[in-house]
């Protein structure tokens, strides 16, 4: 569990430059949606993914990229890709 909290905190730092809703960002939780809640410009999702790749030294394939629309999905994909390393 603390693992997850730690990962959410890490993710929070990564996505901070792109968010456009401070309130939703402050209250960020597992079900937070990047576009709907954080009002991130959809074009910036690819930048977030590149930042995640750099942070965890992983490659995120196109299919996984398409799914990474929420905190929950991002955490799951990061977990899988890190395990595959």
């Amino acid at each position, binding site marked *: 569990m603390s693992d997850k909290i730690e990962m959410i905190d890490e993710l929070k730092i990564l996505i901070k*430059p*792109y968010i456009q809703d401070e309130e939703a960002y402050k209250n960020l939780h597992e079900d937070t949606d990047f576009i709907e809640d954080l009002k991130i410009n959809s*074009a*910036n*999702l*690819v*930048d977030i993914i*590149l930042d995640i*790749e750099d942070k965890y030294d992983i490659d995120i394939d196109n299919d996984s990229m398409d799914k990474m629309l929420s905190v929950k999905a991002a955490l799951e994909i990061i977990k899988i890709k890190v395990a595959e390393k």
Partner: protein
Amino acid sequence: MENRVVITGLGVVSPNGIGLTDFTHAIKNGISGVEFYPHLKDLGFSCCIGGKPKVSEELKREYLTELQLRGFNSSGILYGCMAGMDAWKDAGFSISETTDYDSGTIFGAGTSGIERFREAIYKVDDKQVRRLGSTVVAQTMASGVSAYLGGILGLGNQVTTNSSACTTGTEAILMGFDRIKAGRAKRMIVGGTSDEGPYVWGGFDAMRVLTYKHNESPEKGSRPMSASASGFVPGSGAGALVLESLESALERNATIYAEILGGEVNSGGQRNGGSMTAPNSESVQRCIKKAVENSNIKASDIDAINGHLTATIKDFTEIENWSQALDLKGDDFPYINSLKSMVGHCLSASGAIESVASVLQIQNNFIFPNINCEDLNEEIISLISADKIPQKLIEKEINIVAKASFGFGDVNGCIIFKKIKK
């Protein structure tokens, strides 16, 4: 009925001054913005001097957000946004929350994000296309500068970029002028910007059109109209003007810098002595004559000319063209100056930065000095009086300034600015 078009805002990012206060001070005092760049020397350039605006990281952040600056590497877009936003603010406008359909921009550029383009090319060739990020297109599309500016200010009228080499800035002003005159916009932010550095300047260095004689004396390097002119000094930056219908300006009681009476753009068709790189003199004269005609003034009404005058052997040809087009010579010729003596040739931004300087002369009643022409070209002063090429600041009432720019592709542009009487 056609609208009269006036200038209600100015913005400038120049090698010798950013913002109207610093820029006005610099041009009045003949302050050069040309410097030596060791990086150009390391790369084996013949000309290692140039003019770049001195923009700090702090200043950048007054215009672009942290998010916009992520992965941002486009000097031209930065300068264009700064000049455009300053001009907009100067005209008394704020950033619109909603789309403003009455206002647009025609903001010219020669290249866009050439530094970012270089990074992208290296990544693509290294099979890293998926790692380009989201902003390569926005920064490298030709219309990058107008797209950024339009988005920042919420412009809803025409938002576009024109490109006509070194005539770009001057052409943008005339395109905005036409649009307002025709009643299709109330306000247009017009201007030009230029990327900087080796990837823009290299091609000119290879053509041997840049001076290589002043690497030890950068401030003396740009020498329009001098006997020792030995090629131009490359520069960068941006200039912007807010054009507005006279009606709209009066309605909101705006400060009016000057009126645009008329102007002309044309091309010599690369015939009759014209080529990709040299002007057809007949068309240059035709362009100037048409501008005077459609402004309904007499040539003798012109108080000052702001020339293209880059500091090559073509300076005399330009003066000859002005002289013939206006049918004025000797003491009858208007005062003439070249901003390039202080900032170098800012390429696609030159016409815009130089137009800002021209308009400031009208508003503040002065003619800025030419520097680096102590040794005036003999041919030039056999045609026009040396007194007409000021080397010291002249303070006098200025009503009409003619501004022209000429560019590769044998393209020409000429604008007539006039003081508006209160």
